[in-house]
């Protein structure tokens, strides 16, 4: 049982390169900023599983960004409404509206459109910001964290020992 749990942790904590974690966090932002179940959620799950991104990072990111999405909900709605109401794009939206495929994306929903547009705008800057922050974290905070009593307790647990065995992992996150 412990070995199985350790193997699951290994899968979740694979792909620990800062870029892979940042990519997972950006995908999580897309996932969380479009709260309704649409076609793009399926595509995002596909990308998270098939691309070498950090799954734990994705799950944690999804939780954090869901909370953020709830807080900035009025802004998502306002942005979505503005984009969908833009006169210049009316023809495009009417064409997409007649298509079953595009209707599956829920593009005509203000939150979905707003969330998508904001996530698209923030994705690239956030990717580089997360990379920077992860590097800084590893450089300055990790050694200090590993010395804390909690970290010592975790390292002394059987799960952690099994985890080290299955992953051959000796270093940091």
């Amino acid at each position: 049982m412990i070995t199985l749990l350790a193997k699951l942790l290994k899968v979740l904590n694979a792909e620990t390169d800062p870029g892979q974690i940042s990519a997972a966090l950006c995908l999580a932002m897309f996932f969380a900023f479009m709260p309704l179940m649409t076609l793009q959620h399926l595509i995002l799950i596909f990308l998270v599983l098939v691309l070498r991104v950090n799954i734990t990072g994705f799950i944690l990111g999804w939780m954090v960004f869901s909370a953020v999405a709830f807080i900035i909900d009025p802004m998502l709605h306002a942005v979505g409404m503005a984009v969908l109401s833009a006169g210049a794009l009316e023809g495009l939206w009417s064409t997409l509206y007649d298509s079953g495929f595009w209707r599956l994306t829920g593009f005509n929903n203000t939150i979905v459109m707003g969330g998508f547009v904001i996530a698209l705008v923030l994705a690239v800057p956030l990717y580089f910001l997360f990379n920077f922050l992860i590097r800084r974290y590893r450089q300055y905070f990790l050694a200090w964290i590993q010395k804390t009593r909690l970290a010592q307790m975790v390292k002394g647990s059987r799960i952690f020992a099994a985890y080290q065995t299955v992953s051959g992992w000796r270093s940091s996150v």
Partner: protein
Amino acid sequence: MSRFIRWPGLAAFFVIVALGASVWLLMVDYAVRHVIEKTGTKAVGARVEVADADLSLFPLGLEITGLQVTHPNSPMRNAVVVEKIRMNFHTGEIIKGNKVVEDLSATGVGFDKPRKTSGAIAKKEKPSGASEISVAEKMREKLGRLPSATAESARQIIANEQLETLKQAQTLQQEIADARDRFSKRLENLPDQETFAGYKKRINDLKGGSGESGGLLGTLGRAGQAGEIRKDIQADLRALRETRQDLADTREKLQTGLADLRAAPGRDARRLTDKYALSPKGIGNMSALILGPKYAGWVENSLSWYLRLSPHVSAMMEKSRETEKRRRGEGIDLRFASRRPVPEYWIKTARVSADMGGMDVSGQISDIASDPRVLGRPLVFDFAGVGADNAGSVKINGRLDRTNPEHPADRADFQIREHTLSSLQLLDQDSMSVVLSKARLDAVDGSIRVAGAELDAEIAADLSDARFDVNPGGKEHFLVRALASALGDIRSFDVAASLGGTLTQPEMSIDSGLGDVLKASLSRDLEKHRAQMQQHLKQAISEKTGGAIDETESGFSALDAIEQELKKRLNLGASIL
């Protein structure tokens, strides 16, 4: 490639998708059933239940079995039951979010069936100002009610009523007392015995003084004095005569009042008889009284279902989504101009077969849509049916036209031929119940029009081979016997009913040959009952008011005494002259 691709993840994706699809397939039938029950219950206001719902993907369709819709006003009865509903969806439109049903078939539809358990739901509080009286109740009130067949005794009636006789007696007694006081005062100021004695003395003095001053002048002086005395006496007698005349006039007036007072108990008896007794005029439109309650019940039932369902089947206009109250995290689905617009909900064709009062009725409804403006076509229905062994037929057709929301226009026409009715409760009151135990509907023709909120309906029916049962509610009363006897003779009659006003305040009228026959038949009994009641009332009123009338009459004795006194004084005065 493997630097970016996690191949096991591809397998994991398919496993997750397969698991999700399996869970969806396992849960979807339950979810659909739950949605139908929840939405239906909310729309109807009573429990809607589904035995089973089965969603199929290829072709995309839904089969519902054992649908039961509880009657909102009768929780132990189902308003509608449907054995099976099968519908096929338009897949492309479903993907676009439009619930378009290509064709729907409903079989085993039945109405007003008993339930095993109550289908009531917790009622929400009525909005303030909501009327406690139902539409049917208001209509019945307007049509009139059969008077209570429990005859009240004459004494009970007069105990609860103000009698005009007593009021009149009081007034007359006061008038007599006033007259007595007035004339007594006048009598005090009129010449009396003492006055006339004074005249007598003066005359005697005049006679006695004839020897004192002789001659012509003396004689002339005495003659002048005698003339003056005569004038004074004549003036006093005039005053007495005038008073006597006034008294006679007043007495005559008061005597007329007394005569009128003696007739007052009769008038009171007639008034109370009119109020309490039954008469052909008093019980109004007999056909409305007998047939009205049932008709009012049908009208109320039909209107309540019409008002309840019409927004869901034909006029659920799309609200402006931008103005909807948005819930956090949900957003708003905006609608865009489409090259091929379709309503959000649209059942293209629904074929229905139902059992209606022993008749197998089948037909179809076309274009049940949430927004008929988009469709540009009204909802149209057309049904026909025959009874067992081809006995009787029914045709119903019509349209709900909401293509122009400013001018909604709905209509329905129906015909029934040669249909047998049985055990139809027409009247159910405390005093009596009337049941049409059997009858043959030779022909019924009806048309109903609803323009906006305005109602206009006409129904004409001919019935034959009718049998009525009249049962007394409590103690047997002559009216129950009379009605039973009258209805027992009626075999055929016609009914003409109409409906006007508005959907929320309908005005109904009903007329039938039944009413004329009943009136004619009941007239004799009612008149007899009326005469008896009037007699009893008159007797009871006389007993109650006799004392007051006698007391009033005794007031005249005082006036008689004044009259005697005046007469006596006049005689006295006249004897001097």
